[in-house]
């Protein structure tokens, strides 16, 4: 079994896929920044931002529900914002009766909670779209073009290259543990050993994985030296993005700025 399912890239030939990775990265960042700057309760802006990101999802050929389905997975964090409903100041919206206790729900709190959840949902869609439509090597090129330090890009590139190898290694360790452990399959029976022992076994596996990674990195280094590596990460020059795409980027940034200005003026 291999863990290529980890790679979220979905190869297609849509206009979004063919867009230069730099432009996609800047656009995703600008979209997320716009969502973050949006005032709470600016519902029209949220609808417009959703329209923007959803139309990009439709153009991207991923299917109408691919991004939406994945975006739900990132939502459990809204638990962190849930207490706002009860603790935020301002007029009370509703009195929740739980037996003898009645809990006031604050209007401002509900607005803030919904805004935070929506903003997060919109942002995560932009990020999913970026990773589904851009292959990782292209992202690396984009990072280099956007002046991310070369050493960092080199490490990230190597990390990505061996991520799947080491994830396979981790799966093998997990399978080996399963093969050596009894399991009744009955959920009522508790797991064997003490908690400390189980944690220590997982620790031993992690140590073993690190050791394998160390040894592998030695072999990789030797192979790199054999192929002319001298400490300086080299790469092809960054290809130019067509001027049309830069114009598109400028238009999209202007649109986002205009939406934000509208929201701050009228919908705050």
């Amino acid at each position: 079994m291999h863990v290529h399912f980890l790679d979220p890239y979905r190869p297609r030939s849509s206009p979004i896929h063919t867009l230069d990775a730099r432009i996609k990265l800047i656009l995703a960042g600008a979209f997320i920044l716009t969502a973050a700057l949006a005032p709470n309760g600016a519902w029209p802006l949220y609808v417009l931002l959703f329209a923007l990101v959803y139309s990009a999802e439709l153009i991207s050929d991923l299917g109408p529900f691919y991004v939406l389905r994945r975006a739900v997975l990132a939502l459990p964090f809204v638990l962190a914002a849930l207490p706002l409903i009860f603790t935020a100041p301002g007029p009370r919206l509703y009195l929740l009766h739980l037996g003898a206790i009645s809990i006031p729900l604050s209007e401002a709190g509900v607005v803030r909670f919904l805004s935070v959840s929506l903003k997060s949902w919109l942002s995560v869609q932009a990020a999913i779209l970026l990773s589904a439509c851009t292959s990782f090597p292209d992202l690396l090129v984009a990072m280099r073009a956007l002046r991310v330090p070369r050493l960092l890009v080199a490490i990230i590139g190597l990390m990505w290259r061996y991520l799947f190898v080491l994830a396979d290694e981790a799966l093998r360790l997990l399978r080996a543990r399963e093969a050596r452990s009894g399991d009744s399959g009955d959920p009522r029976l508790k797991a064997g050993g003490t908690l400390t022992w189980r944690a220590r076994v997982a620790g031993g596996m992690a140590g073993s994985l690190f050791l394998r990674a160390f040894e592998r990195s030695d072999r990789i280094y030797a192979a790199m030296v054999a192929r002319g590596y001298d400490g300086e990460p080299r790469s092809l020059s960054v290809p130019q993005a067509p001027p049309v795409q830069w114009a598109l980027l400028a238009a999209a940034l202007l649109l986002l700025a205009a939406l934000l200005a509208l929201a701050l003026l009228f919908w705050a």
Partner: protein
Amino acid sequence: MLSMDQYAMHIPDGFLSAVVAILFWIPSVTVLVVALRRVSADLGEREVPMMGVLAAAIFAAQMLNFTVAGGTSGHLIGAALATILLGPWAAILVLTCVIGVQALIFQDGGLLAMGANLFNMAVVGVAVAYAIYRLVSRLAHGQKWGLFVGGFAAAWTSVVVAALAAALELALSGTSPANVAIPAMGGIHMLIGIGEGLITVGALAFLYTARRDLLKLGAPQPAGSRAILVGGLLLALALAVLSPLASTHPDGLMSVAERYGFLSSEQPPLYTLIPHYALPGISNQALSTILAGMIGALLVLIVALAVAYSRRSRQTRP
């Protein structure tokens, strides 16, 4: 296979106000630039593939879970282990790569919020882990228990302090009330930290037996480590004092947040619903919460020490 702590620790986009999210990029990028310079100066060409593969290993090690109870499971986060194995500067770089790829590819943590996530895990997590580990191993005078107790304490503290930093950022953004977020995040991560500590000790014990040379026991520390040691201690202390203060005076935190523009709130909040965490008999709320926090931390530390010692005595027995 995903457990809750991944969600609790990696703040997604939308949960931080724009000012907080942007502000936290500044310390993260500054430390990252220093780390890049240190690593380029200190380490040879050999270390570039090593750091890449170890970043991948940390990523993959998070798949190695163990059953805790009732369907929940724990797994390694890895900041302390990376710090002990690689030294602080290289660990900062490696964790930056891990957090960056998690955000960019797996939406585990936001892109704009990455500055804050880097600050919590790669800067605070590593600095605190390094400070605690060095202090304990210095106390141990190079004896074996220093590695294990130091490893456990470093793992536990770095997880808890990073979680407190995340809770403070959420509270500053007005996303989560301070008197809920800080005790909740702190409490959950005091438990998660125990799992992290146990796995870290397990990994260190394995490496101690299999490849002692990798642990570089007693080797000279890289240049600039003292700054990280001091910085880590200061960060740990600051967060240990600031968190209970903020959680007892959430309105104070809010007014600070508003004054500096982190939050555009309509009126000063009034928190009356959730009772304050406090010790009886002490009238000063902040003082009593700090005391409660310290007692809690001390209790966990004692348990940790007991676990570490019982492990040690079992190991030394034939």
